[in-house]
């Protein structure tokens, strides 16, 4: 653009050739809506194929009985239904709630909901409260602030699988496991605790679900806190310093200032973090799996979540992936139904949060 501007300045008198060229270009240029669709084409191809269509298809698949993607119209769920209607090929399919019945009567699924709920209820509030404290403290200091900020952000850039292993090792069974060592040396615990291993543990008690929970929650807090601290800090930076000065003149205590000024003014960020954390926590999978990934033994580490069958702390998404991985023809419909139930839970929780927050969030 700058080049053309320079040319225009250099040529004050009318240039017939250039004028004709410009008008020609104008005539050739397409209307704006056409340009818009042209630049949207690349994104739309991907969106339609790998986002819009999958959402619709998975939704339909959940309601089709014995969905068999090996036959008929392949992955196109509704296509299979049409083929079954036209009787062109022998594909017997009907709409119904069979898949949901299979999900809800499954041996494991109800427990995965309970597992996920337990993990969410412990992990999310804990992480948010600690993150809020750290952010407030960080905001109140000057020296070393940058260093602390960088350290607290580090977990964000780590690989979940790698860090899962490190947590398994920190909580390892022997007296030299870092956590056991700490508890024995500092708190005088007598016997080392077996935190994670539930089989192949000759001579020691297999890990209880409670012990496993400690490891999962610790690593989840460690993993999830960086992002929350960062968001709270950016929120705190926008609060006007005048409020604090006014409160100080009134002689308010630090805690009152935090409760009456910081918290209300930070409430949009707190709401945002609460909602995204709950959604993220209900979808937890890699974080839990990675803690167990190095002790799965002969079982498939991708679907192993402690216990003899790998189901001790299996989350909903872990169950969905395990079903999906079984590769039987009907498993896809069941997995689809499971994912719809997950969507239902997430929507419900989000709506409740919005309703509750209406009175408490100050924008």
């Amino acid at each position, binding site marked *: 653009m700058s080049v*053309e*501007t320079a040319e*225009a300045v250099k040529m004050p008198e009318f240039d017939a050739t250039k004028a004709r060229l410009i008008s020609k270009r104008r005539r050739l*240029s397409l209307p*704006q*809506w056409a*340009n818009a*669709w042209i*630049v*949207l084409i690349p*994104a739309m191809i991907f*969106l339609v194929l*790998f986002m819009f269509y*999958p*959402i619709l298809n*998975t*939704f339909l*698949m959940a309601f089709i009985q014995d969905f068999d993607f090996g036959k008929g119209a*392949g992955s196109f769920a509704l296509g299979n239904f049409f083929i079954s209607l036209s009787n062109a090929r022998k594909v017997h399919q009907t709409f119904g709630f069979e898949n949901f019945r299979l999900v809800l009567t499954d041996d494991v699924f109800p427990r995965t909901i309970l597992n996920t709920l337990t993990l969410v209820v412990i992990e999310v509030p804990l992480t948010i409260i600690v993150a809020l*404290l*750290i952010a407030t*403290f*960080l905001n109140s*200091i000057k020296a070393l602030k940058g260093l602390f900020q960088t*350290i607290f*952000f580090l977990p*964000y*850039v*780590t*690989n*979940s*699988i*790698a*860090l899962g*292993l*490190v*947590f398994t*090792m*920190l909580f*390892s069974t*022997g*007296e*030299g496991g*870092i956590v056991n060592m700490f508890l024995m040396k500092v708190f005088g615990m007598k016997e080392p605790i077996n935190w994670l291993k539930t089989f192949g543990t000759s001579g020691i008690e297999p890990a209880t679900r409670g012990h496993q929970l400690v490891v999962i929650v610790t690593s989840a807090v*460690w993993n999830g806190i960086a*992002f929350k601290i960062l968001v709270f800090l*950016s929120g705190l930076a926008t609060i006007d310093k005048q409020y604090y000065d006014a409160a100080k003149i009134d*002689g308010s205590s630090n805690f009152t200032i935090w409760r009456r000024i910081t918290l209300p003014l930070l409430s949009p960020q707190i709401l945002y973090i609460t909602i*995204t954390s709950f959604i993220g926590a209900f*979808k937890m999978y890699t974080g839990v799996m990675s803690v167990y*990934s190095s002790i*799965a033994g002969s079982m498939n580490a*991708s679907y192993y979540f402690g216990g003899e069958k790998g189901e001790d702390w299996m989350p909903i998404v872990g169950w*969905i*992936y395990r079903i999906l*991985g079984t590769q039987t023809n009907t498993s*896809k419909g069941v*997995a689809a139904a499971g*994912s*719809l139930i997950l969507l239902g839970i997430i929507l419900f929780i989000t709506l409740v949060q919005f309703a509750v927050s209406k009175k408490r969030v100050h924008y």
Partner: protein
Amino acid sequence: MAEHAMYFADKGALIRYRTKTIILRTLVYLFLTVFALFMLLPFVFMIVASFIKAEAFQEFTTRADFSQLGFTNWTFDNYAQVFADHYTDSLGHVLPRPSFGHYFLNTFIVAIGSTAVTVVTAVLAAFAFARLEFKGKNLLFTLLLATMMIPGEMMVITNYQTTIQIGWTNTFAALILVHGVSVFYIFYLRQTFQQIPNELYLAAKVDGVNDIGYLFKVMIPIAMPTITTIIILTLMGSWNSFVWPNLVANGNWKYNANYSMKLVSNGLMSLFGQQASGAADGGDTIKIAGSMVVTAPLFVFFIIFHKYIMRGVSRSGIKG
């Protein structure tokens, strides 16, 4: 502190105030330090353990014997094993396995490919939403917003089938193209584009620059910091991606049966498996060295680009 003096009735009150402030300050720093140590502990542990001889580490974990961590027991052997292209199982057989160099190569290919596709689609789409007028714009945009609410698993189920059906299992196409568009980045860029003043657009029009020319000559240069952030976050996402590659590209390449398709995270998982079940020596320390090899490059990356990363992350909230 001198400016506070006027608020206090007498000298005693001022001294009490100052003492309280100092105690509070100390407590704040104490809390932050304890938590910083908690944050750093896994890294320190990982670095130290990755350099310790296997037997010495075994001794240390079972008996809490710190003398095992002495310098005589330090070694590079764990890293040599991670980058070796074979391992010895408990029966003494030498078995081939891809080295981490191989996983790195795969990850680079996927990271660069998917970053290129994601950035191109996001820039073009964000341009349409931010600058151009067309019928159905609001409807389409609302539709995009709605997809962000839906758990990715719903898409994975059908995408997994589609991938199998069009024969993309164990190909780079499945890893690069299926996640070739990010609704969030379209959003993020659209916001940046919208902040560019309208006058620039009108000025460009007067100069005879068409819409596409305006995008490339004005908008992209102005929005470059945001685009850089997107590039960096996408690269990081590819490096840490696990679930999707684990489903569709966990075997050997479709076109070469000797070429493993695994990315770093999946390679790490298979390393855990081999060391746990079959490998003869150095189980734990090799696993830790493998974890270190996967974590360290991202750290270097973070140190160089931390400004872009932290700015981008504070607005997003995606973790790979």
